[in-house]
């Protein structure tokens, strides 16, 4: 119950980073895992295979947290170089709140995903629908990030550069991590698996090659 109250407070907070500072870290991590797992489990349930449900449930929290951890050292240095070190703890708390918001929004969208699966058994529809859900959650979490950054940018406009740097690197890493962690939904023709064959492929190389082939045909 405390977890639900905490999530409610986070979503309503004007300054989510302040709330993050007040809530114990363990509870924040638990919230991310529970909400992320919930959406992942629903996402992996398109073919009703328990193993795929478990795998997908585990992958969403990994996706949400691992890419942030990879990008944090660079973000720390960029903040320091731009003379914004004093605000760094606030910004990190803001980023935590952003990731939590994303997990919560995804969890709140999971009933829609379940209904979509019930309405159509088509795998490609499931892929597009989940893509749309992730897009919606990303937009909302971006708004949350904007809420965190607005007072900081007002005070020191250089924070805008940091925000752009964070988003660029975070998206760059997240796309590759998401590619590595496939399958999230699980193609009906393939057995459930944690990683798909060709895990060491590179998302960008594949896209560039496909584009190149398309343009030079």
């Amino acid at each position, binding site marked *: 119950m405390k977890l639900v109250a905490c999530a409610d407070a986070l979503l309503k907070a004007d300054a989510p980073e302040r709330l993050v500072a007040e809530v114990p870290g363990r509870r924040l991590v638990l919230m991310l895992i529970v909400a992320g797992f919930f959406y992942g489990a629903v996402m992996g349930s398109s073919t009703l295979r328990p193993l795929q449900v478990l795998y997908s449930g585990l992958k969403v929290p990994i996706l949400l947290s691992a890419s942030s*951890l*990879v*990008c944090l*050292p*660079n*973000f*720390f*240095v*960029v903040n*320091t*170089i731009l*003379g914004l*070190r004093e605000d760094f703890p606030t910004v990190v708390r803001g980023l935590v709140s952003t990731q939590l918001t994303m997990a919560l929004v995804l969890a709140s969208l999971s009933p829609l995903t379940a209904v979509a699966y019930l309405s159509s058994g088509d795998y490609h529809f499931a892929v597009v629908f989940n893509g749309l859900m992730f897009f919606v959650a990303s937009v909302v979490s971006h708004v949350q990030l904007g809420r965190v950054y607005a007072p900081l940018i007002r005070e020191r406009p250089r924070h805008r550069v940091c925000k752009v740097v964070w988003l660029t*690197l975070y998206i*760059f*890493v997240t796309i*590759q*991590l998401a*590619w*590595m962690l496939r399958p999230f939904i699980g193609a009906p023709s393939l057995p459930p698996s944690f990683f798909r064959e060709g*895990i*060491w*492929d*590179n998302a*960008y*190389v594949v896209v*560039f*090659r496909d584009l*190149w082939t398309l343009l030079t045909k």
Partner: protein
Amino acid sequence: MRQLLLDIDRLLRGRYTKPEDLRAGKLSLPARALIFGSLILGSSYGLFMGIYGATRPDDPTVMQLFATTAKVPLLFLLTLVVTFPSLYVLSALAGSRLKFQETLRLLLAAIAINLALLASLGPVVGFFTLSTQSYPFMIVLNVLFFGVSGIVGLAFLRRALRHVFAPKLPTAIEPVDAATQLANLPSHRRSDMGLSVFRGWLVVYGVVGAQMGWVLRPFVGSPDLPFTLFRERESNFLEGFFNALLRLFS
């Protein structure tokens, strides 16, 4: 070690390069800390960069890991050794307030900042190294990261030079000598000089740095070739980079 990290931290925060100090031609940066800091920061990025050679499916070699760890800081420091005399002469001719040692410290500071940013991108390189087998992608990614961190290092240098070449604030009456006349030039002319020096440094350091990188290759370690400490002398950096780009698409 702790003191070293503190010094790097102070440098990144701009505590060692205050505008008033630069205007007075003073730089209190500890040169030894800058060199050791650069070695450590460059090595840590090299470690991540060399993982590709150590984990490639065909003929993995730990030697590539050790070689790249040593080569990244060397690339920057050797480039400085080669270019410093000409950079110093260029700035002295333009009427820089920095003396020989101060000029060296300023350039070391720019390299340390460059390498600090590069080291912070190490985990990203490590992540992509472990999640991809595409050699051309790793080349392009590393060139991109070297480029981005280089731009930040140059931005620091440009800002510092602006202060170094800024007009002196009027203080007491001084005898008018050549240096004072130079210092009292209209501000736009002095800032033009700062910009010219910066451009000159940029060309010299950029060209030598890129070619030094080419001479010291391999950094990533081509999966088709056995490990060698240095490759044969052939071609140049630009040709190599565009070849990697082409192979990425084809």
